[in-house]
């Protein structure tokens, strides 16, 4: 009897689970149907006009190197902006890290406000900072440095305080056990663990900043992006290619250097003393050089602070509420662009991840190494440049944004997917081999269960980043709330820019929060 009841209960749960699955699949279908409509995505036009993309590339070839002498200075300026922005951002991040984690001050009165500031800073996308700083300080590299500093500060502070939360408590206990004071504990147990992480994050953000710095000129914040915009507007395609190649080369060189330095830090390779001083000297020289040649004057800084005070004041006292509906509508489109773009990227990156990893596929090593370079090359092209190219192909609108995100995200998703596949534990694979399972069965039961949750978690994380990107791609005409910001900016309607901020910040925060919850669930089960 009891057996019978147990069985009925079991079959009921099975049915409930099946119904849940069907409902979930229908919901997912509806979500994507809605998103695809929202971004005006149709495969027909992708294929119909896709050829034009290559036509465009054809018109760019051969690149026109004659303006090269005039491009050296903007290129250097791009690098200077990135350097200075990262440096200032890294300094600004320090107090936020110290007071934003519970290492030093355990009082919630300090901890929570700092964390909130940090979270708000992190929600604002790179180019939106640029728009705001250009509005505040006028055109030129000074605005770029300001924007990059804040952008860098948000990420560095966030990543480092996460590292601080995950610090190994055992050394702390050991140092406390010998009777050390609080500051001694920080000096001997916390900092030795935290400083490598901090430096690692600073280097990572520097890489990001070089990419952002290269396109900031589009909104007038200095750097080589200005030249790119001009060339694009004049339809001087050979020159566009030259500038794109220059940016590509700069990013590649910086990535390469950064990787070398990071590896040295991570592996704790002790540099010989003279080399260390040389490196430090070069760094100081670079920052000083950047500082002097960018000619940042204090008056404009003060004016900038004034502007921000007015902006915040305007948002609070006289918000442009009549634009709230429109802003929300465009923000929804931005989220749709991010969703569709990231999904397409995911569909490309999963097979790429398997092909680019040397294990479990049995591909020749040369092939895998070749596949691995695809994401590296893609990553060197900023989203914005891709978006500009796609707008030239498909016309302005959300489709260009979708494609820009879809292609650019392959850079990170493909790279990390390959790393996930390479990290697979081989023990379960052997267990299945030893029981006589076939290759497909091994894939289904030993490989897929290990990689799929990680793939999905990575996808969702990338979606977070794509939402930020999608909310500024409109500045160049690729749909979403960025288009509203662009219009408002050209009419100097700062109250509308304000209302856009009011919409973007909470949306990104909610998406970040949900994403973190889902990822945690996926990974920990």
């Amino acid at each position, binding site marked *: 009897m009891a057996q019978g009841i147990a069985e009925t209960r079991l079959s009921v749960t099975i049915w409930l689970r099946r119904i849940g699955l069907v409902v979930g699949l229908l919901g997912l279908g509806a979500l994507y149907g809605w998103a695809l409509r929202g971004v005006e995505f149709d495969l027909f036009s992708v294929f119909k006009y896709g050829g034009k993309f290559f036509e465009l590339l054809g018109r760019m070839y051969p690149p026109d190197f004659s303006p090269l002498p005039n491009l050296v200075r903007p290129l250097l300026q791009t690098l200077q902006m990135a350097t200075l922005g990262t440096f200032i951002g890294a300094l600004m991040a320090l107090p936020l890290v110290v007071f934003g984690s519970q290492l030093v001050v355990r009082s919630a009165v300090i901890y929570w406000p700092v964390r909130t500031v940090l979270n708000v800073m992190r929600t604002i996308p790179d180019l939106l900072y640029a728009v705001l700083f250009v509005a505040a300080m006028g055109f030129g590299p000074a605005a770029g440095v300001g924007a990059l500093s804040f952008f860098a500060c948000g990420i560095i502070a966030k990543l480092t305080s996460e590292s601080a939360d995950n610090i190994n408590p055992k050394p702390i206990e050991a140092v406390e056990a010998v009777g050390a004071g609080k500051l001694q504990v920080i000096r001997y147990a916390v900092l030795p663990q935290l400083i490598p992480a901090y430096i690692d994050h600073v280097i990572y953000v520097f890489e990001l900043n070089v990419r952002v710095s290269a396109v900031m000129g589009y909104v007038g914040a200095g750097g080589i992006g200005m030249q790119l915009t001009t060339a694009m507007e004049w339809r001087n395609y050979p020159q566009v290619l030259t500038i794109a190649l220059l940016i590509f080369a700069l990013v590649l060189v910086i990535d390469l250097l950064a990787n070398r330095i990071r590896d040295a830090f991570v592996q704790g390779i002790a540099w010989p003393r003279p080399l260390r001083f040389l490196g430090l000297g070069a760094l100081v020289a670079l920052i000083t050089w950047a500082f002097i040649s960018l000619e940042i004057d204090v008056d404009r800084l003060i004016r900038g602070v004034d502007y921000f005070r007015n902006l915040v004041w305007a948002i609070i006292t006289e918000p442009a509420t009549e634009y709230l509906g429109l802003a929300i509508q465009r923000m929804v489109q931005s989220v749709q662009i991010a969703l569709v773009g990231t999904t397409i990227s995911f569909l490309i990156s999963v097979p790429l991840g398997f092909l680019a990893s040397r294990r479990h596929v049995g591909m020749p090593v040369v092939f895998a190494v070749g596949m691995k370079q695809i994401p590296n090359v893609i990553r060197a092209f900023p989203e914005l440049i891709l978006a500009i190219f796609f707008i030239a192909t498909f016309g302005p609108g959300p489709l260009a944004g979708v494609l820009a995100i879809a292609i650019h995200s392959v850079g990170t998703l493909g790279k990390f997917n390959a790393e996930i596949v390479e990290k697979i534990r081989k023990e*379960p694979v*052997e*267990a299945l081999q030893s*029981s006589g399972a076939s290759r497909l*069965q091994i894939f289904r*039961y030993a490989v897929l269960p290990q990689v799929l*949750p990680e793939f999905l978690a990575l996808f969702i994380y990338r979606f977070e980043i794509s939402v930020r990107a999608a909310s500024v791609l409109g500045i160049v005409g690729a749909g979403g709330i960025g288009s509203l910001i662009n219009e408002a900016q050209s009419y100097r309607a700062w109250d509308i820019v304000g209302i856009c901020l009011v919409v973007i910040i909470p949306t990104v925060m909610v998406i970040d929060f949900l994403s973190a919850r889902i990822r945690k669930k996926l990974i920990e089960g």
Partner: protein
Amino acid sequence: MGLEALSPFCIPLLYSFKIGVSMATPILRIRNLTVIYPGVHPVKALDNVSLDIYPGEFVVVAGVSGSGKSTLLRAINRLAENDHARIEGEIYFDGVNVLKASRRQLRELRSHIGFIFQEYNVVERLPVLTNTLVGSLAHVGLLRSLLGRFPREQIERARQALVRVGIPQPRHGDRAARLSGGQKQRVGIARALMQKPKLILADEPVASLDPITANVVMNIFKKINEDEGITTIINLHDPVLTFKYGKRIIGLKGGRIIYDKPISAINRETFEEDIYGTGDSGD
């Protein structure tokens, strides 16, 4: 030092006192097995090993780490090839030449050999039941298995196997990651039982477990061997467990068999000195 005479190339003896064990044909026949891991410094992990294992035997392979125990077991089902090992010699399992088997034949062979790993090798993210069902993959249709639709009777068998090794029904739906080490190893054994194995190979199955759990798990192996007569070969480095559970003990040192005797014929003290001792008598 008198042992030295016994150690090289000890030829396996027939144990006529083993009642109820068929002596006619060995289930596993190993001749001149040499395994080399190539590389800049090639390592000869096994050196000219010959062995006969008879149906129903419970064999413990003893030796320090690096003596070639794992390589021996991993050569039998050719798992060692995953580590690019070169396997030379002859291995006959149930009359089939293992080293000459095609991929398909190898899969068939492997499906009759249950393998148990030191690190359990469960798929952490899959439920306990699915981890057990994995043992039946070789005999479930490809499409069914890819869709995860296992036959009812296999599910029933998996549940029985789990209960038998001491994982109660309510835990069958848990993710394997939530189990303790001892429980994971029980799942590993249940997975092997699903294969209806003719031979069980266990590579240091209790090395990662505490002494009490280790005994519990060793008792499971013992019971399976006694109840169903499944031939079992277990690698152990712990002399206490070796003497407690082994019925026939094979001593490995430096990739060679230096001992092959029933437990009753072994002088424990000299054995320990010879197998685990640091004296250079072996070389």
